[in-house]
């Protein structure tokens, strides 16, 4: 099968799924119960996000209030990560492009990477790294582990800095590969576990958003 035919088929399936979803919902046949069948975990009650304060890659404050007004996808990673982080940010870029194309009437969600390596990932480092993937993406970091932990703990994101010695500068950071979804009210809404497929993520997000808007 040629690649373009495959992509066309995928798009056709995606469009049919979203059309069928819309029709079924209008007929009252899509409900919160359908969220149980998604691979995403949608929280029964969206969770309030407690105060935290980080700095974005442009040097501006980003806190729990900054989520309000738009959906946000939040991933946790670090810039010296060769495989998972660039791969997830690329998945998020494909998602952003597809959402823009398929839902031109909707605001594009925010896409955020929170650094779990604040020592190496300064604002300056993030300012060079994040726009490589997409100019509208947001990178967040802090000045201390406490600042980072204030968001990772409540988002349920474990991470572990594995330095081989105190002066090891090439250390790896083990971290969760999950992507969290925050709703426009600023509450934690759903969790997507790795591995991530951009088409599936977009489809599930569109359904989650649709149901949330009807409630």
């Amino acid at each position, binding site marked *: *099968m040629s*690649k373009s035919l*495959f*992509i066309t088929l*995928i798009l056709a399936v995606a469009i049919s799924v979203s059309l069928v979803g819309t029709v079924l919902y209008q007929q009252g046949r899509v409900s919160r119960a359908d969220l149980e069948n998604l691979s995403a975990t949608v929280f029964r009650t969206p969770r309030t996000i407690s105060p935290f304060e980080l700095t974005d890659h442009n040097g501006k404050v980003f806190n729990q209030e900054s989520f309000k007004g738009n959906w946000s996808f939040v991933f946790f990673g670090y*810039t*010296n*990560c*060769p*495989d*998972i982080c*660039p*791969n997830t*940010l*690329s*998945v998020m*870029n*494909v998602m952003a*492009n597809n959402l823009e194309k398929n839902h031109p009437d909707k605001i594009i969600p925010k896409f955020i990477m929170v650094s779990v390596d604040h020592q190496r990932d300064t604002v300056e*480092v993030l300012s*060079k*790294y994040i726009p*490589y*993937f*997409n100019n509208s993406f947001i990178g967040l970091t802090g000045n201390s582990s406490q600042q980072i932990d204030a968001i990772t703990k409540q988002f349920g994101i*474990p*991470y*572990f800095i*594995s330095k081989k010695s105190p002066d090891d500068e*090439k250390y*790896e950071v*083990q*971290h*969760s*590969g999950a992507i969290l979804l925050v709703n426009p009210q600023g509450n934690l809404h759903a969790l997507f576990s*790795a*591995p991530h*497929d*951009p*088409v599936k993520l977009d489809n599930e997000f569109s359904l989650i958003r649709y149901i949330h808007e009807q409630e």
Partner: protein
Amino acid sequence: MLSIKTFFLTFIFLFISPLLTADDLAIEDAWIREAPPVSRVQAAYATLKNNDKNDIEVTSAASPAFKKIEFHTTTLKNGLMSMQQQPTIHIAAKGEVKLEPEGMHMMLFDPTKPIRAGEKININFTFSNGTSTTFLFTVKKATTINHHQHMHH
């Protein structure tokens, strides 16, 4: 004695041929993820096919373009994604090993100079029988690739 012509043709074959084979190891889709600015590490991926009836063991990899290359597998353990270093890449007789995003890959440390998409980089594999072969990897900016489609086409 090896003639200059033979030597030259061997050289051409090694560096130009799109599907390089050494003994019975074939490599396909060999690519390096272009590193985002500030990142000192990146990954290389490929499909390694063993056409021989004996297993092949890649014991090390090296490149003039990087200070160090290691074999790693990305694993999910207790909710944490981490990378486990592997001593070798083992390719069973008539089998294949895929080095792919979020799976087994080569981790490339400290490029000796900035490497941009489109460049071709030599990576030399050393095998357990002491021989070695150089393969060509293409550097790609992978921010718009859907790997889940890419892997199954």
